[in-house]
């Protein structure tokens, strides 16, 4: 099923649009991860697609058919809520069978199908339990099973893992990944967690203030962000204020001058370098030397905060390197990884929307509170 939105707009207040003229064709049978900080309009967009909110403008198309005026219950779109929204007065299996009951499926048939879906999310043993006694992870699986049981044409997931603790989130992410892949449904997966978005999405849609900021394969968006915002939002990024020389040949940074990336426009710029693109090398290969300010052991790597002159940088060193505070290390920049953005003179670097080292905190996103 092809899902497309055209010029979709919705505002809850007069001056702050939640979704501002969003147009996008979601790839058929693939997972689109919609990533954005809280309040970027991603959950609102989901509710508009599901038909649970009415757009101010724009349209939603399923297989080319305009369903903007079709009520939610007639769209055959499965939606998994951030809050799960399981019915507390029904058992697990009755919850899962609900979408079949509304479609008039006979009791025996819908119970059989519900049981089958419960098995796929490994919740078969819980069929006759009440919702109240379930853990967060169990509720998450039931909610997913409920959204899938009636064989929706499109699956929408609103922050499906955000209500879980970190360890559980990791485990379920892997499980969800293989399950969603096997389903091959057109899936829109909304999250504010960049790790989730990068891992789960066939396609990544980055949203900011109600608009789509960038669309692409996760790796492409990660390596070639189109704006400092995307660079900062997708993982840690050093943004260094520099300048591309008038001929476009040199990139002047406060601590080194190197050849400019091909196609860089002359003038003030931000040079983006991810921590893993700064290597500790032998002195003869170094672009510059930097003084270590602090070292954070992250497991796979050590994230090192250094100063190259007055410029603070984050770099990733091997997890077995011996690094002492205050020591000077020779550093080389991976040329092909440098991304350059135009910069206004005197412009401050964009502040990261989430802490660059640790994954984003679980912050609630809007539409649940908006009625």
């Amino acid at each position, binding site marked *: 099923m092809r899902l497309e939105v055209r010029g979709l707009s919705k505002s809850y207040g007069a001056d702050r649009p939640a979704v501002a003229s969003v147009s996008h064709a979601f790839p058929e049978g693939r997972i689109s991860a919609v990533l954005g900080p809280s309040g970027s309009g991603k959950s609102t967009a989901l509710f508009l697609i599901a*038909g649970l909110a009415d757009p101010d403008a724009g349209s939603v198309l399923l297989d080319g058919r305009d369903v903007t005026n079709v009520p939610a*219950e*007639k769209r055959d779109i499965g*939606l998994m809520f951030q809050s799960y929204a399981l019915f507390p007065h029904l058992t697990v299996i009755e919850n899962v069978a609900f*979408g079949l009951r*509304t479609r008039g499926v006979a009791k025996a048939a819908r119970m059989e199908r519900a049981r089958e879906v419960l098995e796929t999310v490994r919740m078969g043993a819980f069929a006759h339990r009440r919702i109240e006694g379930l853990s967060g992870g169990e509720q998450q699986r039931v909610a997913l099973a409920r959204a899938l049981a009636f064989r929706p044409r499109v699956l929408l997931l609103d922050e499906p893992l955000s209500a879980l603790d970190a360890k559980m989130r990791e485990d379920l992410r892997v499980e969800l990944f293989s399950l969603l892949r096997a389903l091959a449904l057109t899936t829109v997966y909304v999250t504010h967690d960049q790790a989730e978005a990068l891992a789960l999405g066939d396609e990544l849609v980055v949203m900011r203030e109600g608009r789509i900021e960038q669309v692409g394969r996760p790796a492409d968006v990660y390596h070639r962000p189109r704006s400092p915002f995307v660079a900062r939002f997708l993982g840690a990024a050093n943004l260094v204020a520099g300048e591309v020389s008038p001929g476009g040949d040199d990139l002047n940074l406060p601590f080194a001058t190197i050849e400019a990336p091909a196609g860089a426009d002359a003038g003030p710029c931000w040079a983006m370098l991810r921590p893993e693109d700064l290597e500790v090398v032998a002195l003869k290969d170094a672009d510059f030397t930097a003084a270590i300010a602090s070292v954070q052991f992250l497991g796979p790597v050590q994230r090192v905060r250094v100063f190259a002159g007055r410029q603070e940088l984050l770099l990733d060193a091997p997890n077995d390197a011996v690094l002492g505070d205050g020591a000077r290390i020779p550093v080389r920049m991976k040329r092909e990884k440098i991304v350059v953005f135009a910069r206004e003179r005197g412009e401050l670097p964009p502040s990261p929307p989430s802490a660059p080292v640790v994954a984003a905190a679980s912050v609630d996103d809007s539409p649940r509170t908006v009625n």
Partner: protein
Amino acid sequence: MSLPVSPRKVARAAGIAVAVSLAACLVAPLVVTAAGAFVDADWYGKRSEGALGTGAAGLFRYVLGIWSNALLTSLRLVGTVVPLALLIGAPAAFAFRRRPFPGSAFVEALAMTPLAIPGIALAVGLLLGAGRAPRFGLLVAGHLAYTLPLVLKTISNALERERADLERAARSLGAGPWQAAAWVTLPRLVPGLVLSALLVFAVSWGEFNVSFLLATPLVQTFPAGLYTTYTTNSFPVAAAATLIFLAPIVPAFLAIQALGGEEFRRGLSS
């Protein structure tokens, strides 16, 4: 310097003493009434009613004989008012909470005003406005005015605690607005509906002001009859009538108490 008894203990003891004496003051009339109906004492004036002398059973038979009409009127009234109040109040509360329309807040406030209007004003208003309507109909209207606000408030509170996302989830699973209401919202509202039914029952059963002023010799509610019996009959007869009046209302209040607690806990946990 330390006191022999801590001030906190003194305060606690004083609090308990006040509570116990208040409770005693509330219960004492009931005890006297109950005693009046069962103690066979000449000085209560029992003999003066003539048809007595056969113990408590005889007394109750006599009382039911005089007031059966009023009792039936009250039962019929309650039987009409409780379902009507729920049928009007619950959907109205749902509309106010879930489908507000321009001016709905004003209408809601207006529906609450009878609580602040004296019964005599309401009764006179009903008589002036629709004096030719059947008297029983006027009684129903008066009782609805007093009980609808209770239903509105109870159901509104229950709906406010209920997460609207359950209704949205039902819609996304293919339930139309009516199905969502019937399969999700309504089952979740059952405790609130039972609670408001009990409240309406208790208020309607005991309502005196409007009932008394609208009473005719033929259409009279039991509380209005109680007033008459206290002014005209002997004390044992009035006491027995009072016990008959209290018989359904005490269990109702106990149920309200129990349900209210349950409602409260559910509200906290969800």
